[in-house]
């Protein structure tokens, strides 16, 4: 059996089961709407969306690894590229770009020009503080945590707030080394 290299985002996207994009968008909208009703505070909704994303991310990473054949990234730069080019394509059907690297290569921006989550969405005045797509930052944080990278993720630009794109800042806090999990005299 010849070794199989990493697969491209397009190839995987063509092969996975997909749901109708409008159904997906509307379902997500309904979830956010319900959270706003239940939690009342916009800040709480942001937190809840992030937590939901995190819970998705810690599971999604295994599906990502199993289907993409990505084995390891040499550095954080490659990791960011893989998220933008393969990860986003595979699960959202869009490709993102990576820019704004800082000098140490630990902080960058993932820019989404196109975001299927926000089709048909307009933020009313009462929800100006809402990060509508906060679930995405949770997903990325959760997935990276499972591959031992602690990250901090924040929105820099948001089209729903009048910016021209979605920009997600990903900051690598630390990488956790693998340690022997048992105590000696257990």
């Amino acid at each position, binding site marked *: *059996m010849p070794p199989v290299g990493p697969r491209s985002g397009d190839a995987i996207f063509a092969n996975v089961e997909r749901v109708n994009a409008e159904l997906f968008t509307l379902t997500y909208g309904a979830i956010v709407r319900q959270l706003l009703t239940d939690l009342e505070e916009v800040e709480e909704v942001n937190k809840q969306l992030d937590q939901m994303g995190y819970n998705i991310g810690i599971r999604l990473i295994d599906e990502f690894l199993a289907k993409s054949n990505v084995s390891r990234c040499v550095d954080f730069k490659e990791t960011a590229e893989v998220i933008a080019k393969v990860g986003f394509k595979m699960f959202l059907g869009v490709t993102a770009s990576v820019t704004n690297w800082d000098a140490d290569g630990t902080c960058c921006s993932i820019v989404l020009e196109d975001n299927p989550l926000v089709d048909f969405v307009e933020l009313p005045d009462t929800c100006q503080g809402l990060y509508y797509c906060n679930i995405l930052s949770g997903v990325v944080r959760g997935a990276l945590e499972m*591959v*031992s990278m602690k990250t901090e993720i924040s929105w820099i630009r948001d089209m729903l707030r009048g910016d021209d794109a979605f920009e997600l800042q990903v900051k690598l806090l630390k990488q*956790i080394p*693998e*340690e022997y999990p*048992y105590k000696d005299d257990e």
Partner: protein
Amino acid sequence: MQFFGGTEISPSLPASTASGNNGHMMYVFNRNGVCLLYREWNRPLHTLNQQQDHKLMFGLLFSLKSLTAKMDPTTPDKANLGVPQLPGQGCSFHSFRTNTYKLTFMESPSGIKIILVTHPRTGDLRESLKYIYNLYVEYVVKNPLYTPGTPIRCELFNTTLDQYVRSIS
């Protein structure tokens, strides 16, 4: 599934059957050393209790992995033996064979370790383990009732797995 037909190791061993039934047992661990799954198909001898057995297996893999990384002749700068490595750092082994069994090992970057112990004359099982990882994704990770990091109790996964392992030659 391709059969590579390994070299004869011990003439007294029963030949592996092309029809399958070559699996002895399988373990799935996560990064924290929790045994998520243990399946046994053909294991006449138990010398330890189950918990010790799991710990021994996990410890063996952990040490073997750091040893193989230390022995790597191609990488110039290596940490001392026993110093914690970042996941994905250093090389790793994928199988070893004794005269009575073969152990195949796979680790995903997310820390899931899959160990399959089979008849010593089974061929290259790396693709099989990848397939099992895919089964794990479909039947366990996507199961909303499953809490990540806890032992797997999913009948559908077990039956699919049993069926697949029986077909390995």
